[in-house]
């Protein structure tokens, strides 16, 4: 059970400050979704927490400052999957998942029986057994996402950072991957931080949300607290309707601007003709 706490995080990329003092906190076994418009600094936040970017401020896991940890220790505390993972051209799934055991191996050591057992268990658990001997490069997007997740799980780190784990996935695969992450979180008590660009999806899964806008936390709290029509209109420049589902979680629906709707209602045929012309 592991708390993740971020305090006053400032990150500069190419001498230009991208995050201006962000605070965030996730309780052990919680799920924090980092949301925000494009370029708000969501991925930067995750990369900084993962130790891939230099930062000022503090990131602690259970009170331990991550910047004090040696690289391998850090990799045993925290697993991270990037938005666009680099897929080795020719490597079987089993070997790829086994890479997740790297933080447990000495510089020149080879993976042992236990490492293979852990990798095999993760493969079985994520239903990848049938793919185990296939090359990662030959997999479909959904399969690849699960394989990358399997590599992260093989690290057996209590904190899981997933940068847009559902980009490029269709609806069904998005749901499968997120359900999987949620079940892993509940079964193993993993602490999960994801960036998610789809607010509706984020609202369904995350316990807490952090809305980043221009490198600052514009709002944070439960999904209902963060996802308000006014807030979304202000920060995303989008028209949405927010309803509350039977589970008490907000549901976000994209609505075409009122003006457009009014025009279409007045002259339906003309409207559709103009639409065709536009297309």
């Amino acid at each position: 059970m592991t708390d993740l706490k971020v305090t006053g995080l400032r990150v500069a990329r190419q001498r230009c400050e991208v995050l201006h003092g962000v605070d965030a906190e996730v309780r052990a076994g919680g799920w924090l979704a980092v949301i925000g418009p494009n370029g708000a600094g969501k991925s930067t936040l995750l990369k900084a927490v993962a130790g891939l970017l230099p930062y000022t401020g503090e990131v602690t896991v259970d009170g331990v400052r991550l910047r004090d940890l040696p690289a391998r220790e850090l990799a045993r505390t925290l697993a991270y999957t990037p938005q666009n993972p680099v897929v080795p051209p020719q490597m079987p799934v089993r070997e790829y998942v086994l890479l997740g055991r790297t933080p447990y191996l000495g510089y020149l050591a080879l993976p042992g029986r236990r490492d293979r057992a852990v990798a095999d268990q993760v493969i079985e658990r994520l239903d990848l057994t049938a793919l185990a001997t296939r090359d990662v490069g030959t997999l479909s997007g959904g399969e690849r996402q699960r394989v990358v997740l399997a590599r992260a799980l093989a690290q057996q780190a209590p904190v899981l950072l997933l940068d847009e784990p559902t980009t490029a996935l269709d609806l069904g695969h998005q749901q499968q991957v997120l359900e999987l992450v949620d079940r892993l979180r509940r079964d193993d008590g993993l602490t999960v931080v994801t960036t998610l660009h789809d607010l509706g999806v984020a609202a369904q899964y995350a316990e807490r949300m952090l809305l980043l806008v221009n490198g600052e936390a514009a709002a944070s709290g439960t999904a209902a607290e963060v996802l308000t029509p006014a807030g979304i209109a202000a920060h995303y420049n989008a028209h949405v309707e927010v309803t509350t589902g039977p589970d008490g979680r907000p549901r976000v629906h994209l609505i075409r601007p009122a003006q457009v709707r009014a025009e279409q209602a007045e002259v339906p045929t003309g409207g559709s003709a103009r639409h065709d012309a536009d297309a």
Partner: protein
Amino acid sequence: MPTRLLPRRAPAPGPDGPRGADRDARRSARFLPYAVGTVLLLGSVLAGLLVGAADLPVRGVLLALLDELPFVHVDHGLTPVQYSVLMEIRMPRVLGAVLVGSLLAVAGAGYQGVFRNPMADPYLLGAASGAGLGATLVIAYSSADSVGGVGIVPLAAFVGAIAGVMLAYALGATAGRADGTATLVLAGVAVSAFLAAVQTFVQQANVDELRRIYAWILGSLSSIGWDELALVAPYAAVSTLVLLLHGRLLDVMTVGDEEAAVLGVNAARVRFVVLLAASLATATAVAVSGLIGFIGIVVPHAVRRLVGGSYRRILPMSVLLGGAFLVVADIIARTATAPGELPIGVVTAFVGAPFFVIVLRATRQVGL
């Protein structure tokens, strides 16, 4: 998706289950390529010892080899001249071919792993042009043949190769901020071009030495004797060992610097160590044989087609098949135009290119 979420530490299935048999099959499949590679290497060595201008009886050669083994004494029946041809001429040359071929192949595999680029070869960072300049300079200007018992051309080639790589690395490492491989390759291109220009200038200013310079550049194994082998053996052993030990880390590197960092691996450090070892291997090979091209790029690729993409298997297989390949190429170089001799670098490309195409076509369905 029917995801079965098993408990995290599920009991491992018993060794008698289908998994056990599967694992045995996997294990024997893993060792088969090494067995084949070893047989190919030993076979090519034997062929290299048997083929040549002087006819040596097969039985005599085999018995003489057996006689060399510790605690074995047999009468090989070779005449003193035959024995001398076998042991003083052919044996060092064949072993030299094994050494140079293995070094270039394993160095090429290391370079490809470090740069995550299948087009990388051992000469990528200026080793070839540095060695070429070093050798050209001493051929053109030095009156001495050796320094402290070491041939001056091999010495200059070795120093030049190391210096070329160091120059490229220093430039690339200081110029690049982010992912270092692209700037490193560009620095290598710049350094290679610069050193090659200087080499050409020196060469044109000393036209009377053109033949010797070209002979060296095209590569030859004829100057390798027992002394040269003994001299380079330690460098060859150290560099090969270091490369072989880095197979797993090169596998980790295939996911990129950033993801390697997430797994706790410092990619820049691994890259430095592997480049150091691969460049030492290259310089060692170049020092005794001149510039032999094509092996460093062809052999690792052929190997990759045979044993898959893991550097834990590519590196040792490159050692075995690189050695075998150069021994065979050398047999062709010695015999194709006998009593003359073809430059070995010409043969490796002439034989290697079609061979490579055959390997690519034959393994098309299993490969990428």
